[in-house]
């Protein structure tokens, strides 16, 4: 075991070789013999009844194997798509979830909703035939504006006012009492802009039914193939789990959007039996824009109560969350349990009360997108903290420092019990790295050049590795949130690690191998990581919410410990010593106080040949599994500082310096962790400066391609200064907290706080495009002139 590949080393990635040489195997790279192609006819209207659907001409078109509709789904008793988290209203009644058929049954509810599928020999034939389908739509009013949704007409009959739920968290009376004592109250209204995830690999699926065995195989772009299988079996009813294999091969990014079980893969796997051929579908980018679950989209009002010394007394928040036209797989929990429990941020806030209304609109479903609820909470708390500091004439860093939680564990008024952290340490390092003390001089220099310079802070908290299962179950989750692992040691001592986590860019093949090689004292090249196939891995919950390190790797070490324990038993027989005298260190089992020892591989061989022990006393073989259910969330935190320079003539914002100091607990591979930070920041900057999904009043998605939806490009971003101050997590065996979402959570308020600092007022929307910032500059100039 060399230090170069151990835990904590920046090991280069094992998986890179196939990706840099074009040998990756993404879903669309897979072709099944005799496969046919699916094309989905989508609704051009935001909201309409389907009066008539005539597929007869399409059925007769060249190459067509089948045209399937919602009626066919119903006839086959295929169930609708589900939302896996039950939220209860303030009065205890359950949320109002409308049906979500994979193909429309009488009504369409957003532009891009699935009307019918055409399956043909070629994709072009399927698309040509779809143009021959005649749909008679009775167009209904679009519901786009959340503030007007209640009286806009029902999208689903079960929710006449389009309110899915009216939920709350915290102690209202205690919060009201805190406000009654306040010396100063800071108020803010915020819109958290709607985003479209845009993993570079569009979603894709191949359904393949084997009539010989009765087994369906689904190749799909999934972050959690086992959950997909569970939902498609138990709820949608395609086939029982043992007759359905889900394979998520190389997946080109997810960011949440590939957690969910969508209409297209459901239809492909079902249709493969209907047409008797494998059925392939690959989204084009426009389809991705229209039908991937979107993210964020909140309107909030918040108030922060302060005492005369600038200490926070209480926080109240009222949020409207857009859930789109249907409840996507985990949509309901994102603006509730993944949002409000984070509203305490890094601050000691004695009383918090949050109310959230989930609203149906005739737009694409909204669900978890990198950060999922936590960016929305962080944006709110970090914007109002910044505003409160400005209103009370305090330095924003000092104001935060004064209000930081300083002793741990800390119980917030909104569920969370933070186990550990050191917020002052990350702030101190960030201030130093950002050269905060000389900012005033830099601002002056910019002004000389006609530029506006601003600096913005974001002291964020995250909650990763959502858990424990019993707790999330009591809050309405339909699943447990543990993770599984299996360590298969081969007779020659090489190791396969089977994990329920799924890698779609996170580098698990490297970090997981690093961890196992380190623990077993073997070469990293002797370890292979297997994931993404329900026939290989027994079960797993997949990768999202930055859980693969804290939960997935904890399951792995649990299984590794079992392997070592079994190895000790084998070694005891092989070395003719008592089991209690066997020690395992640096890849060798040795007898304490002697020079007798066996290498890990030699013990593996002994376990398999089973010559030295009796099969009744000890089972042959060396393979162990583990399920790990955490006792708590983990709480990564950090401070990001963004410094901008604005050209008031054009409104262009240039990020001149980005400082990120994060506390992720223990780190397995700092190279990969830093990469996650960079990517997260880019998505957060994207939200703050560039990206915004825009539906017009008719419910048409105006930003349905890269011509109008601004993706962050290389020249939009700076390089990032990344630092770490790590305090190990106390609630998992590795001390890991998680790093996947931190940047996306931290970045937006840092950017907007910097821009509002530069322009001298708070009225800057996200995304702060040049046009928006130019308007803000005009307003700032008017304000100055008036003063």
């Amino acid at each position, binding site marked *: 075991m060399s230090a170069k590949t151990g835990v904590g080393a920046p090991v280069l990635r094992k998986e890179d070789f196939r990706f840099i040489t074009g040998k990756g195997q993404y879903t669309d790279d897979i072709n099944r013999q005799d496969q046919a192609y699916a094309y989905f006819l989508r609704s051009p209207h935001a909201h309409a009844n389907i009066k008539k659907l005539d597929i007869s001409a399409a059925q007769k078109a060249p190459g067509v194997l089948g045209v399937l509709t919602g009626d066919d789904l119903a006839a086959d008793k295929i169930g609708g798509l589900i939302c896996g988290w039950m939220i209860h209203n303030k009065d205890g009644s359950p949320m109002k979830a409308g049906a979500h058929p994979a193909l429309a049954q009488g009504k369409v509810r957003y532009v891009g909703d699935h009307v019918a599928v055409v399956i043909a020999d070629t994709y*072009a034939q399927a698309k*040509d035939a779809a143009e021959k389908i005649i749909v008679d739509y009775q167009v209904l009013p679009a519901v786009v504006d959340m503030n007007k949704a209640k009286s806009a007409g029902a999208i689903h009959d079960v929710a006449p006012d389009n309110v899915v739920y009216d939920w709350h968290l915290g102690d209202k009376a205690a919060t009201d009492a805190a406000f009654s004592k306040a010396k100063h109250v800071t108020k803010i209204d915020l819109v958290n802009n709607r985003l479209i995830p845009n993993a570079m690999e569009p979603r894709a699926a191949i359904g393949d039914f084997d009539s010989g065995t009765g087994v369906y195989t689904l190749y799909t772009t999934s972050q959690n193939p086992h959950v997909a299988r569970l939902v498609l079996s138990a709820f949608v009813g395609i086939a029982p789990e043992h007759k359905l294999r889900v394979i998520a091969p190389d997946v080109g990014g997810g960011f949440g959007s590939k957690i969910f079980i969508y209409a297209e893969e459901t239809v492909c796997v079902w249709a493969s039996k209907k047409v008797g051929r494998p059925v392939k579908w690959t989204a084009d980018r*426009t389809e991705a824009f229209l039908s991937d679950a979107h993210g964020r989209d909140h309107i909030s009002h918040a108030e922060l109560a302060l005492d005369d010394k600038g200490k926070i007394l209480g926080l109240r928040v009222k949020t409207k969350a857009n859930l789109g036209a249907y409840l996507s797989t985990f949509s309901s929990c994102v603006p509730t349990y993944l949002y409000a429990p984070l509203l305490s941020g890094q601050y000691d806030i004695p009383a918090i009360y949050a109310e959230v209304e989930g609203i149906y609109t005739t737009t694409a479903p909204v669900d978890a997108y990198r950060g999922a609820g936590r960016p929305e909470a962080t944006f709110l708390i970090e914007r109002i903290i910044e505003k409160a500091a400005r209103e009370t004439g305090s330095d924003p860093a000092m104001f935060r420092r004064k209000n930081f939680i300083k002793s741990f564990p800390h119980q917030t008024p909104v569920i969370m019990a933070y186990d550990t952290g050191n917020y002052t340490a990350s702030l101190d390092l960030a201030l130093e790295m950002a050269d905060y003390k000389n900012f005033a001089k830099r601002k002056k220099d910019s002004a000389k050049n006609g530029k506006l310079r601003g600096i913005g802070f974001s002291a964020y908290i995250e909650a990763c590795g959502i858990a424990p299962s019993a707790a999330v179950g009591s809050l309405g989750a339909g699943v447990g949130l543990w993770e599984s692992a299996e360590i298969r040691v081969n007779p020659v001592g090489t190791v396969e690690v089977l994990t329920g986590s799924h890698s779609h860019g996170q580098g698990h093949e490297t970090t997981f191998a690093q961890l196992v090689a380190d623990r077993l004292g073997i070469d990293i090249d002797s370890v292979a990581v297997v994931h993404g196939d329900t026939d290989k891995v027994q079960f797993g919950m997949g990768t999202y919410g930055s859980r693969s390190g804290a939960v997935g790797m904890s399951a792995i070490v649990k299984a590794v410990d079992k392997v070592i324990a079994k190895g000790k038993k084998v070694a005891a027989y092989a070395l003719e010593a008592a089991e209690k005298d066997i020690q395992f260190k640096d890849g060798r089992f040795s007898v304490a106080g002697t020079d007798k020892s066996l290498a890990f591989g030699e013990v593996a061989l002994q376990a398999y040949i089973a010559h030295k022990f009796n099969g009744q006393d000890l089972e042959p073989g060396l393979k162990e599994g583990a399920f790990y259910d955490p006792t708590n969330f983990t709480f990564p935190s950090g401070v990001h500082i963004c410094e901008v320079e604005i050209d008031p*003539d*054009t*409104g262009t914002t240039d990020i001149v310096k980005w400082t990120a100091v994060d506390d992720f607990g223990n780190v397995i591979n700092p190279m990969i962790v830093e990469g996650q930070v960079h990517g997260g920041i880019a998505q957060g900057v994207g939200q703050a400066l*560039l990206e915004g999904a*825009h539906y017009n009043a008719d419910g048409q998605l*105006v*930003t349905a391609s*890269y*011509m*109008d*939806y*601004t*993706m962050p490009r290389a020249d939009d971003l700076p390089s990032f200064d990344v630092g770490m101050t790590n305090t190990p997590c106390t609630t998992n065996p590795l001390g890991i907290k998680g790093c996947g979402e931190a940047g996306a959570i931290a970045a937006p308020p840092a950017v907007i706080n910097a821009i509002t600092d530069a322009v001298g007022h708070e009225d800057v929307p996200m995304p702060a*495009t*040049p*046009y928006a910032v*130019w*308007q803000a500059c005009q307003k700032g100039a008017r304000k100055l002139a008036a003063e």
Partner: protein
Amino acid sequence: MYAFNYHAPKTVRQAATLLAKNEEGKVLAGGQTLLPTMKQRLASPSALIDLNHAEGMTGIEQKGRNIVIGAMTRHVEVATSAVVKNAIPGLAALAEGIGDAAVRNRGTIGGSIANNDPAADYPSAALALNATIITNKRKITADEFFQGMFATALEEGEIIVKVSFPIPSKAAYEKFPNPASRYALVGVFVAKKGSDVRVAVTGAGSNGVFRSKECEAALASRFNAKALDGVKVAASGLNADMHASADYRAHLIPVMAKRAVEKATAK
């Protein structure tokens, strides 16, 4: 994409004949706009007449006081041409800023001008430099050529063969890109030749490229960035969309013009 018949003529004459025969046909040059449009099924030509194999349509040369560029010359060739850089550096710089590197390797000057996209860069240079568009049938001045959004003076069966740019004494282009598409939100090409000052604006006008009378008037007496101080451009007739209001575009025109003049007059 809908199906189409494909033709790869070897000469401009053959191309013109094919174009005449295929009423619903279209000419394919670099394809960087046409192909995405066809992929989205927003265009359905019956035939594509591909000029990529036609002879004599590429190349850059100085002819007297003009730079003459073959219609199938790729943007990268114009951007890196020593002849263009020497005679009209502003034109080379414009070409260097079209689309991205891969688009510049494929896209052509003829295709860009024939398409007359209201947010394309080349039309502004052609109009400001008072270029002559040479077709298989005739010569057309830029003033006559551009006739509004996606509309040009090209007639049925007419193909651009060359574009001739008179060499100005000073010229430069400044673009404020749409943050998403990177097309011009406002692009301003300024050119001075003798006492003639022309300022052409792309991206902003709801009817395609146009000349800014306000900027030209200010620069006519003094071709200097300061001359544009306080110049206001009217917002009427300008585009408004989610990326920019007409007011913002109107504001950006003199700002970009000023920056272009600074570039043009920099030593």
